[in-house]
């Protein structure tokens, strides 16, 4: 019998119906099996705008269980408006515990940052991805970029880096710096800053990427080799924050926000709000280690 409950307002656990969740999980398994490969998926409409984190939500809602502890950040902050909105939605639809504390979370959804605090192997890190195709800047057609990935035909991408260096003396790519995953696929690490890119390499955690509008899922499994694209003599580097320190904690080795106060003075503040809070409370959160931070 077809149900005919007028104006029904009941939703399935985690909003998405079980058949679709299963489909997303199957696609995620494929993504994990082929690190860096973009898997097309159904990408059902969410009650959240396209381009506002629907892909991340699909992943979160497809894999979340009743015992999960959910954290979500937007541009590094737990309290950013869109993060609040999505957190409330996930909470309403699952009744799962939510947290700001990176160490406490089992699922962390993010827009454009990796936490400064090191991730563990029992955590899953979920990215909201606006543009999953790293080659889009050099090739506008989807059917061609898929072929380029299939044949590992990446010369155009490399030439664009070469050209950037020739023009401006550096590879002028900022957030979303392209990386090579497992020596095979070039991947767009969502626009996380270069500061975060080295933390994808050999990470303890599983990293899942959801691009809702473009309908693609991809993954970096734990302990996978992730190399930023660089030439033998023109190297990748992270954002240079030398000479600056967090005005509240005096800490130097973190990605900083640049703030302008009312009197026009410029100050720097640690971007990762939970990391900042922990430092301010004299706790000692364990930070990701990588060779770029070590050099500071």
């Amino acid at each position, binding site marked *: 019998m077809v149900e005919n409950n007028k104006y029904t307002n009941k939703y399935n656990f985690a909003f998405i119906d079980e058949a679709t969740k299963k489909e997303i999980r199957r696609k995620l398994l494929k993504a994990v099996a082929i690190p860096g490969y973009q898997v097309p998926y159904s990408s059902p409409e969410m009650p959240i705008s396209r381009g506002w984190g629907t892909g991340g939500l699909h992943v979160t809602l497809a894999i979340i269980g009743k015992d999960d502890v959910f954290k979500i950040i937007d541009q590094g902050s737990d309290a950013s408006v869109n993060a609040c909105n999505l957190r409330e939605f996930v909470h309403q639809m699952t009744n799962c515990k939510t947290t700001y504390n990176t160490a406490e979370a089992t699922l962390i959804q993010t827009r454009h940052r990796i936490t400064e605090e090191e991730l563990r192997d029992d955590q899953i890190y979920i990215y909201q991805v606006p543009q999953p195709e790293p080659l889009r800047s050099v090739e506008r057609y989807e059917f061609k970029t898929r072929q380029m990935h299939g*044949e*590992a035909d990446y*010369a*155009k991408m490399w030439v664009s880096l*070469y*050209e950037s260096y020739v023009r401006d003396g550096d590879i002028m790519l900022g957030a979303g710096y392209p990386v090579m995953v497992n020596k095979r696929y070039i991947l767009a690490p969502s626009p996380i800053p270069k500061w975060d890119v080295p933390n994808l390499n050999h990470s303890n955690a599983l990293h899942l990427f959801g691009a809702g509008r473009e309908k693609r899922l991809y993954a970096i499994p734990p302990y996978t080799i992730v190399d930023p694209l660089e*030439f033998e*003599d023109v190297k990748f580097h992270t954002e240079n924050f030398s000479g600056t320190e967090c005005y509240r904690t005096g800490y130097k080795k973190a990605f900083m926000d640049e703030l302008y106060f009312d009197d026009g003075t410029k100050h720097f503040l640690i971007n990762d709000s939970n990391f900042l809070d922990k430092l301010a409370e004299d706790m000692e959160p364990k930070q990701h280690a990588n060779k770029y931070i070590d050099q500071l």
Partner: protein
Amino acid sequence: MSRNADNWLLKVTDLTKIYGEPNENTLALTGPEYNSNICPETDSIVACANISFDLYPGEVLGIVGESGSGKSTVVKLLYLDMEQTSGSARFMPYIDGSINMLDASSQKKRYIKNYLMGMVYQNPRDGLNFNFTSGGNIAEKLIMAGNYHVGDIRARASDLLIKTEIPVLRMDDQPVTFSGGMQQRVQISKAIANDPPLLFLDEVTTGLDVSVQAKVLDLIRELQQDLGITMIVVSHDLSVIRMLTDRTLVMKNGRVVEGGLTDQILQDPQHEYSQLLVSSLL
């Protein structure tokens, strides 16, 4: 330049490309004797049929014919830009010529094109990416062959530009700002960047001014003498063929009507079409 039956570089056998749906009479009803390459029964078009030849290391082979004769099709098939209807091509640098390279996977074909061949098209836009600088275009070919050192890439690019007589200062300019002759020279630099064993030249001087044509031809001849590259040169212009090639195939309506040493064909053409071509040259 030793030539004996066993040391060929490229062995082409019965290369055929037909568009449309041919039937069993298609090949019999087309060709120079019908002065047509369109099958009257099926409307299928025989771009080229039963092309066979051996190419030897260091040799320059010319393919001459009017437009529509199938000469460019032969080159596009051999440069793996399109797929053949039937026939084979074995290429010594690729697995010692033991298999038909035309049937390789697209990934393998990419390898062959990137590492083992070079191509200069009639239109520089087909061979160059006009959004990249001329240095970037050469870099693309070098990167394709696994060079990821910017310093080395730039050194090699400037060598090539000097060789093709382009001011090194223009290395970081886009070819869209260059003259037609310069664009063609950049295309040549790119094509030979990896010292390919085989280079294709498809109507490379068509569309250039006569004085510029001569310079580009001189350049190609010098490069051939300096580097000893094996080449296949396609042209409708017998004077280009005379200047560059050792041996020539004359094509008409998708078939080879005559083949032999270039000098011999020029002095004593056998087929009436070749005779027509030669007489128009004089």
